[in-house]
């Protein structure tokens, strides 16, 4: 029993020692705040002068704001893959990764809503969506499912955390003084009773099951914003699964990057082990292969037929103005990572992190390639308009407004991970055969 106690003490300390405000945190958050202020100034300009401060015009009317929105919704889907799908199957090694995945899901889903507001011509009329909303419009569906998914994700982040909060609340000396009252409230008087555990366990299970259709919905509906039009490049029946599979690629990469930095900056090497990187690497390869399969379908099928409008679009991607970006994204962001990650040498923390950065950058530009080139080639020719109507190029202000959501995501992830245990203490203790609430008896 004594042994039990000391291992638990060490475990708790290991997983909670980062919970404090230190210099690194202040410098990092200060940097993010300053950067955010610059971006907010850019948004102020847009509010004052109109959406025209961005490079979007009448033909390419959805630019990087919208492709960024797609990217954010995509990245948030990882919560469903890790905590719902793998969790319900009963995969054990995900224990230290579940909270990281849920944190990423919450951060990206929460900010996705803001991204779409930055793309509105009249953001002050946002409430009209609720007052005058037409249920027939996919935008209404999107608003509904993104909100639902966000609520589910917050609950799935919070419920498994209650036990940890209760553990740390009892060991108040591990927490900064200002955080203790917050922990007191959030612990909800959890005391590891069978009744409480039954409720939490059941809730988590139910939420995990509901989360799967909700997550599929958010990205399928997002893909329908495009697939419900008749435009070449968007008029596709596989856009739903194509987007969902792409989302898992981006999300896996995000989780791997987060694992790497949490592991080194919070000293979690004993908990996020090389084994976890290896396994996540395999998951990433699987997701990339599925996405590659959908890519082949999405491009080869119209390329074989070469209908007039499709031909123009595909020519632009394969060998025209967008060719460089297209091949960098497809080869550098998808094919090469698959080839490299097949070898176990690359499935170690540092190479994995670097590959994941390539994958996530590729994923962002992939959304650009889905959203923008289609609009540069409408059915009817673009004539009698200035040159900047014909070719889209994002402006500086637009780029800053696009960076802002990333800063917000980093802030949310930093705050959640800094003030709560990144790795579940309760679950980890249980898995190691320690009774977390009886350890001091």
């Amino acid at each position: 029993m004594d042994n039990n106690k000391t291992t638990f003490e060490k475990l708790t300390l290991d997983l909670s020692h980062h919970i404090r405000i230190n210099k690194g945190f202040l410098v990092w958050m200060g940097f993010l705040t300053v950067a955010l202020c610059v971006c907010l100034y850019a948004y102020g300009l847009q509010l004052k002068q109109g959406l025209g401060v961005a490079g979007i015009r009448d033909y390419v009317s959805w630019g990087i704001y919208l492709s960024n929105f797609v990217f954010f919704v995509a990245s948030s889907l990882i919560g469903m893959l890790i905590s719902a799908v793998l969790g319900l199957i009963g995969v054990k090694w995900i224990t230290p990764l579940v909270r990281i995945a849920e944190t990423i899901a919450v951060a990206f889903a929460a900010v996705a809503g803001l991204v779409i507001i930055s793309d509105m011509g009249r953001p002050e009329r946002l409430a009209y969506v609720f007052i005058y909303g037409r249920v027939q419009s996919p935008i209404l569906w999107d608003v509904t499912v993104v909100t639902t998914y966000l609520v589910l994700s917050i609950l799935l982040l919070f419920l498994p955390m209650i036990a940890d909060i209760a553990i740390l609340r009892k060991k108040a000396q591990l927490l900064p003084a200002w955080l203790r009252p917050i922990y007191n409230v959030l612990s909800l008087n959890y005391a590891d009773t069978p009744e409480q555990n039954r409720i939490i366990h059941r809730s988590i299970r139910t939420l995990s099951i509901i989360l799967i259709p909700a997550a599929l919905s958010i990205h399928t509906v997002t893909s329908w914003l495009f697939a419900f039009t008749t435009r070449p490049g968007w008029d596709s029946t596989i856009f739903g699964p194509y987007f969902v599979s792409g989302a898992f690629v981006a999300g896996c990469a995000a989780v791997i990057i987060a694992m790497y930095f949490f592991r080194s900056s919070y000293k979690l090497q004993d908990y996020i082990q090389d084994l976890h990187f290896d396994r996540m690497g395999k998951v990433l390869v699987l997701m990339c292969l599925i996405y590659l399969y959908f890519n082949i379908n999405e491009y080869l099928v119209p390329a074989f037929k070469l209908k007039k409008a499709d031909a123009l679009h595909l020519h632009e991607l394969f060998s025209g103005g967008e060719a460089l970006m297209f091949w960098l994204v497809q080869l550098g962001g998808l094919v090469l990572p698959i080839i490299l990650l097949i070898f176990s040498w690359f499935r170690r923390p540092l190479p994995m992190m670097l590959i994941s950065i390539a994958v996530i950058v590729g994923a962002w530009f992939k959304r650009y390639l889905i959203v923008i080139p289609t609009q540069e080639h409408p059915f009817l020719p673009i004539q009698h308009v200035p040159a900047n109507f014909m070719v889209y190029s994002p402006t500086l202000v637009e780029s800053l407004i696009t960076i802002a959501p990333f800063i917000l995501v980093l802030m949310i992830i930093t705050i959640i991970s800094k003030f709560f245990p990144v790795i579940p203490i309760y679950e980890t203790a249980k898995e190691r055969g320690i009774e977390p609430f009886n350890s001091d008896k």
Partner: protein
Amino acid sequence: MEDHSTHGPNHDDGKDKGSSRRDFLKNLGLVGVGAATGAAALYSGHIFEAKKEASGQSKILLTQDGKLVEVDSLEIKARSKSGLDLLQSHGREGIPGKRWVMVIDLSHCRNARQCVSACQDAHHLKPEQYHMNTLQMKDSPDTAPYHMPKNCQHCDNPPCVAVCPVDATYKRPDGIVLIDNERCIGCRFCMAACPYSARIFNWLTPKDAEKDKDLVYNVELNVPQKLGTISKCLFSADRCREGKLPYCVSACPNGVYYFGDENEDAVTNGTTKETVRLSKLLRDNGGYQLMAELGTKPRVYYLPPKNRLFPFEEAKDNQPEKV
């Protein structure tokens, strides 16, 4: 457990604090109500004084049913709000019994672009903003080029209306697709959905924003144009209401446009003012719709560019198209 023992006394403390907080709130409420009442009394007194000073003057006005009435000038209120309401409800209802339809005879078009400028003048548009644009078309390498005026097709199955999240763009019973820019949130889903690129957006301050700022918004004209909202061809719904032909139709010097009512099976040429049977015109001249295969059911018909009256000349002001 240890938590319980510390809870007891704390609980009582909380109660005391709670009751003193309630008292404080109660007092604050009383002060607030008193201040509001005082302010209201002062304000109504001020209104009353202002009224007394200006009274004694009257104006003679003509009512809607044609009577002359004398009204104290204090009683006269600007009707701009209700004017807007009237325009908005008219704009939603449409013109009863009509099914507006347009026919564009491509064999007559020589790219005079007077339809374009008349339209831009009427709707206060910038030079690069088109409700009506004339495109230089060439369907394949071996076929002849031709000029094609292109506007909103006022589809009977409009993809733009289907996707609008707030019912800002809508289909009227008389066939016209309109945009309510008091409602539009500027999401531009309709622009993405339209296969005819018929829609434009006010990206920056509209052309006559300063001049038009006191105008009551007319949904049937879409003037004043509003920043951050959509605009497009309206079949000149305001002119239809007055029994006149649309701006572009009247402006054409070459007899390209016919406009009329499908229910009456009659369309009138804007240049010659000749009225012909719609069904006969389409039958005799091989009338067709633009991209009918998309199932949009356009209300604009085209007559093919055969036996052209004018040789094709490349438009001078046209920008080279991006290859």
